[in-house]
């Protein structure tokens, strides 16, 4: 009998809630790399995903909750070889999302922010969507497919 391998049918979801404190930035990166690990990503793919998550989580802490703490929800979903990531805060929200997403735009230059967070998320992930309402909080959704190139080519690329 023939076995049909349906990759798309593999779905796995985890949801983590954690305090909006800077110690948890590294925790969020470790969590997402552990979650993505089963897809056998390259060093570069893992680095891309960790950077994007780090940017989104840091934004919740610094901007969403303005360094006063709160709760961040991170949902990681795997669908076949695609990782979907949702990172949410219930903080101050963003009045002008288009402007916020422009490269080099920052509302906090005095905190040495460079305004590159959203640009990195956009560059390192396959897609990025930001939903926000002032006073309601912010939701960042992004996804990335792992292993779009044959493994051998991908490994060669890393040398």
């Amino acid at each position, binding site marked *: 009998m023939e076995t049909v391998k349906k990759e798309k049918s593999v779905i796995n979801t985890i949801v983590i809630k954690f305090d909006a404190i800077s110690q948890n*930035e590294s925790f969020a990166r470790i969590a997402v790399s552990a979650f993505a690990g089963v897809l056998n990503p390259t060093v570069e793919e893992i680095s891309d995903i960790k950077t994007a998550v780090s940017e989104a989580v*840091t934004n919740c802490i610094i901007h969403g909750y303005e360094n006063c703490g709160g709760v961040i929800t991170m949902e990681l979903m795997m669908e076949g070889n695609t990782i979907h990531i949702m990172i949410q805060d219930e903080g101050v929200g963003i009045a002008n999302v288009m402007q916020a997403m422009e490269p080099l735009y920052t509302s906090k230059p005095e905190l*040495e*922010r460079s305004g590159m967070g959203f640009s*990195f998320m956009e560059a390192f992930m396959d897609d990025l969507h930001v939903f926000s309402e002032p006073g309601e909080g912010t939701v960042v959704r992004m996804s990335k497919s792992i292993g779009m190139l044959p493994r051998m080519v991908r490994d060669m690329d890393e040398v």
Partner: protein
Amino acid sequence: MEENFAVIENYLMVKMPSEVDHHESMALSKKADEYILGNRIKNVVFDFEDTKFMDSAGIGVIIGRYKKIECFGGKVIAVNCSRQIKRILDMSGLYKYIEVME
């Protein structure tokens, strides 16, 4: 953290941590500025030999120190950058302001 800083003539050498994120960078920037002001530092060298991860917070650390020394004609130099770090520096347009050496 003191062991991550060394002063050689008018150069400040900064050994960057293994993960350069918002959490790690706050104390690092503060300490670097103490050295810059207290030791008549002209140039700053960031050594990324041990760094496995860096996000936009690292860009803030570099630009922040650059602004402190550039008015006196100082330079910022980055050494031992991995491919990932070079890509972050490049995307942020930092190559215009700093020297990246092997």
